[in-house]
């Protein structure tokens, strides 16, 4: 199709693919949010449990130190090192979960700003414009093909047009798209040739 430089079926497929892409990408955005939020919930639950354990072990360590003081006053000795180690472990666990929570929250924030840009600027604004543009191109192609089909019936039997005559009845695709050509108002470029 040398005059059109475009296959209408391919352009229609591209338009449909763009619409599908926008729709499926919304699913991907929702999946990303669901995955992150689910993990953030799990971390929050684990953190609440770790903090409760830390409080409990802190109380136990304090009780141990109080008992150790009584025992020491009586001349004895009570080892609170195991209670201290358990508390230190619980504190590290809380700190580890807080770091995981902060890291994931920051990663989500960074990702979300990019996702928002893609969604708002590209998929919700630019993509519909691209689809409308393709539809305009397709309409132009269809109008062009319709004009060519109409023209095919016009020459009298046995009439062989010269290249110049052929060209004068065929608007280019650019003319159709830039509205230089209005359907039903085709005029030869050179009036001397007649319609």
């Amino acid at each position, binding site marked *: 199709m040398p005059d059109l*430089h*475009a*296959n209408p079926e*391919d*352009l229609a*497929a*591209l338009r449909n*693919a*763009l619409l*599908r*892409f926008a729709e*499926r*990408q919304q*699913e*991907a*955005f929702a*999946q*990303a949010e669901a*995955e*992150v939020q689910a*993990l953030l919930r*799990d*971390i929050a639950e*684990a953190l609440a449990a*770790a903090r409760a354990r830390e409080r409990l072990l802190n109380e136990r360590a304090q009780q141990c130190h109080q008992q150790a003081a009584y025992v020491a006053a009586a001349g004895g000795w009570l080892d609170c090192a195991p209670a201290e180690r358990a508390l230190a*472990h619980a504190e590290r*666990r809380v700190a*580890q*979960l807080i*770091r*995981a*929570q902060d*890291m*994931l929250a*920051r*990663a*989500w924030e*960074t*990702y979300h700003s*990019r*996702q928002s*840009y*893609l969604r708002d*600027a*590209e998929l919700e604004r*630019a*993509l519909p*414009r*691209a689809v409308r*543009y*393709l539809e305009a*191109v397709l309409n132009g192609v269809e109008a062009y093909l319709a004009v060519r089909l109409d023209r095919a019936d016009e020459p009298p039997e046995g009439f062989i047009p010269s290249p110049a005559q052929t060209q004068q009845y065929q608007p280019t*695709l*650019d003319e159709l*798209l830039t509205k230089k050509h209005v359907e039903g108002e085709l005029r030869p470029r050179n009036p001397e040739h007649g319609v």
Partner: protein
Amino acid sequence: MTMQAEETSAENWRALQDVWERVEPDWRGPNAEHFARHFWDRLEFEVQRHLHELAGLRWALERARERLMAENDS
């Protein structure tokens, strides 16, 4: 470890690219140039950046999961 959103996005982009690769070689002229310059190139750039950010998010998810699972070992 995989991330569903990353797989969906990559598949989705590949599907659109496949269609574009069928259209692009035969589509010539100012309309094609306008479409490529004002829409396709920009979309491709933004989608690649989005996929890059998704990979970063997956990395963060994996590290966060590792730290969460470590709780069970303690």
